[in-house]
């Protein structure tokens, strides 16, 4: 009974730590997983291994993961295209070589921040109102808009180097979100 309980708890905690949306929560689930597996080792008469697991798994690696999570900063780019009915990875391919990849490379190499790309086909207004992305790429017909904040130093750098970063497309427009209201940007 006790064995079944422990092993099932292990499975549940492992699934939680893999499937959870929040990385910090994942780390805490991983710590709980280590503690439970230490209990399991103790139950199977291996106190030495249990002690090592408790010291390494719960203490060292949890703190190390938390510090690593604090050190990694992510630049969040969102690609909005309302014309597409169902979005999949093929849709991103049409702008991948021209915009997305150079932008990611610039953010990664020059700014040394981890880029992260999301895409959606919801309308631009809902995305701007409900989500908080650092940078929005909006495709409307043949025109490409880039939205960002004036206070964002990374976005300022991107705008300043836009000619070097994105070479293929000429008609690309930069809109600062905090200077222009959403209605004005639509026109």
């Amino acid at each position, binding site marked *: 009974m006790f064995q079944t309980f422990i092993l099932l708890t292990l499975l549940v905690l492992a699934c939680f730590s893999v499937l959870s949306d929040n990385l910090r929560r994942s780390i805490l689930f991983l710590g709980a997983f280590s503690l439970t597996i230490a209990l399991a080792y103790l139950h199977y008469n291996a106190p030495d291994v249990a002690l090592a697991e408790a010291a390494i798994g719960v203490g*060292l690696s949890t*703190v190390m993961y938390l510090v690593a999570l604090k050190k990694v900063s992510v630049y969040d780019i969102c690609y909005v295209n309302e014309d597409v009915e169902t979005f999949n990875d093929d849709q991103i391919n049409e702008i991948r070589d021209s915009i997305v990849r150079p932008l990611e490379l610039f953010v990664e190499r020059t700014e040394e921040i981890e880029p992260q790309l999301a895409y959606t086909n919801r309308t631009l207004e809902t995305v701007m109102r409900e989500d908080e992305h650092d940078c929005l790429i909006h495709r409307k017909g043949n025109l490409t808009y880039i939205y960002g904040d004036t206070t964002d130093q990374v976005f300022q750098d991107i705008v300043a180097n836009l000619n070097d970063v994105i070479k293929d497309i000429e008609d690309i427009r930069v809109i600062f979100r905090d200077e222009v209201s959403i209605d004005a940007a639509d026109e």
Partner: protein
Amino acid sequence: MPQTSRLFHIVRIAFAVIGAAVVLFLFLNHSEQLDTPLMDYFTADFLAQTGAQNSVAAIYLNYRVFDTLFEALMLMVSVMEVINVSWANKHAEQYKFEKDDFNRKNNSEIVIRMVGIIYPFVLLIGLYIIINGHVSPGGGFQGGAVLATALITRYLVYPNFDLDLHTLEKLEKFLFLSIVMTPVLYVFMQIQPADTTLSHQIYMVAMNSLIGLKVFSGLSIIFYRFVFYEGR
């Protein structure tokens, strides 16, 4: 993206399937019954032969001490690799000393108070695990890891870089030399003051302390290197 040829793909999958089938076949048809001569040898008379009341300590500090040497070597090599990789970072100089980093406002008051209370007890239990390694469960590695955890919780409270990592690195290498020398002299060459349980127990405590200190310094070096020489 270059595509590997379809035939190659099929051959690879077939190879994996055949390999898995062979392993499963051998595993399921293995019906040879072995006795437990090694277990009998290790657990029959370990107290008189090695002076350890814990058979695990008897195995890793006396019967199979050769394994322990290479485990210690493995930890030292990984520490050296971490140092090497973190120096390769082009901004290493820039983050060498983060003196301005000290900022109590970011740290939770609860964590600071609780770590302050727990800290001496964690140190005590680490030392207890090391010194009592040949009697109770535990030993050098576990105790060293607990001590390193205590030092790392210090980072949560007081994130300053006032630790002399160079001394720790030198200490770790010196400790590795001692860890190699002690069993070579005591177990392999049989240079013992007396073949009594007391003498064996002194050897056990000395070896556990050396391993504990080495693991402590190795894990601390890995952590502090990682925190202060990596990232932004």
